[in-house]
């Protein structure tokens, strides 16, 4: 058993080492700074700038969180504090189901519904032209994907707040909503932040759902109705090229490494901040 455990840990190391090793050629060719902060992408000339892709990922994730967080928060509060038992029993499998639906299905649905809706109904109000394959489409699809995740974590977090604390507030004459606003949310703050962090990680790394609706266009998007090209989509779309140009393979492996590192750093930093908040405010 110990042996297999060590093997498991080894895998994590192997993944990191492997990605770094495979990325070295392209790092040697261009400096790290150049790779991350420039946006010109010319594989045929052997020049790679990942900024567009990084920014696309960030944009799409931000929109996803903007949409998902209020919806999830209010739903979770409702389910946890107001809903009757039968409502909870109904919503619970529904949420599980939503979280189990494979990303590719969301991609199909997004292509069938969201994309045409954006291009026909929504975008004309704002821009001249949009194919519908856009940052917004990616954000909406991702939002729906992360909503069940946030809700389930929030419900666990809310359930962990002791009943006595709610009763204290109510006994003083507060309304239920005041109790929620001033006590529940305050006490659950670390949990809420943790949920958001997890959701952001998930959204950032999601490949196929976004790929199918984001347009995969390498120019920097000028509005949310323009096409974008997040980092995972880059890797998925171009893996075929990996065989022909070794430097291209190295570049894509670097993209994977970037993804890997960004998510790890994000999680680590958030965990630190979370610990700090919890300790400082004794929540």
């Amino acid at each position, binding site marked *: 058993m110990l042996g297999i455990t060590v093997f498991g840990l080894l895998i994590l190391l192997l993944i990191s080492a492997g990605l770094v090793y495979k990325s070295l050629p392209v790092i040697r060719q261009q400096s790290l700074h150049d790779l991350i902060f420039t946006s010109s992408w010319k594989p045929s000339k052997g020049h790679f700038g990942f900024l567009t892709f990084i920014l696309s990922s960030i944009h799409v994730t931000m929109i996803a969180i903007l949409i998902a967080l209020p919806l999830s928060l209010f739903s979770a509060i409702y389910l946890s504090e107001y809903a*009757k*038992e039968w409502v909870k029993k109904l919503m619970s499998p529904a949420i599980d189901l939503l979280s189990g639906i494979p990303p590719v299905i969301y991609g199909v649905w997004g292509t069938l519904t969201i994309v045409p809706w954006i291009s026909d109904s929504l975008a004309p109000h704002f821009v001249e032209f949009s194919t519908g394959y856009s940052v917004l489409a990616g954000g909406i699809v991702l939002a729906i994907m992360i909503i069940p995740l946030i809700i389930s974590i929030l419900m666990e977090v809310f359930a962990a707040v*002791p009943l*006595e*604390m709610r*009763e*204290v*507030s*109510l*006994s*003083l*004459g*507060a*309304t239920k909503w*005041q109790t929620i606003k*001033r*006590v529940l949310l*305050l*006490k659950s703050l670390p949990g809420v932040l943790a949920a958001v962090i997890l959701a952001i990680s998930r959204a950032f790394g999601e490949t196929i759902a976004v790929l199918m609706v984001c347009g995969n266009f390498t120019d920097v998007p000028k509005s949310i109705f323009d096409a974008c090209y997040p980092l995972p989509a880059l890797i998925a779309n171009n893996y075929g090229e990996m065989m022909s140009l070794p430097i291209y393979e190295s570049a894509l492996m670097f993209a994977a490494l970037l993804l890997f590192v960004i998510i790890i750093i994000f999680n680590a930093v958030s965990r630190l901040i979370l610990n700090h908040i919890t300790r400082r*405010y*004794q*929540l």
Partner: protein
Amino acid sequence: MEINLKRYQDTMETDPVNVRSGPVSLTKLSYPLLRVVDLNVTIQHKHILKNINLQIPEKSITCIIGPSGCGKTTLLRSLNRLHDDNADITISGSVMVDNEDIYGKNVEVTHIRKKMGLLAQRPTVLPMSIFENVAYGPRIHGTRNRRKLYVIVKNQLEAVGLWEEVKDRLKTPAIKLSIGQQQRLCLARGLAVHPEIILGDEATSALDPIATTKIEQLFLTLRKEYSIVLVTHTLRQARRIADYVAFMYMGELIEFGSANDIFSNPQHQLTKDYISGSFS
């Protein structure tokens, strides 16, 4: 939520605000009487409280005693409608406060609860600073003026004897206080909304003897202005501080009377047995 307390501490010396440490004068009705009329409470089809009829005298301490499981806590929590959110509970009968049935049709629950301060068994401080804990009640009822809040907090902390101990760390998290201090803080918090009645649910059972004595002393002081109803788990505490005693057994109110009467001359056999220690 951050308040510059130093500033207000200074102004207090030179600019005193008219302050009372007791409840707002009860001009509307004559007696803050608490009357329980034919109260029946069923929890998940189990008849927990059976036809309780009880009158709580004003400005005194009434202790509810009885063996565990007799329904004392259920009764207490029915008095400020804390059972409202529990779907498994059915309540019939009425509880009259200021001649108003708190279970009546158009009653505003938050208004009722403001009249009663509840001190729970385990001190539960809110996840905020000491200051904010006491200020919570006034805040949710609309008081926003920082000066007013400071004055209220100071008065209530003084009333429970905490002021000297915490005046230099009002902004620190309340959870850092000792359990005894926390319970006094909870009392101050409850008093800050100027209730008429104080309810205590075994309020000292989690505390050490010294802290318990402090709280009991506070109750003795407070009874000059409030009606206090305490569920107590030990006969000793009832003997120490009760003015009136209500004895409950298996969901029924067996006997009620002044502490003297009950302890020296109980009428009911069950009461006699319980007081003599035959069962607990």
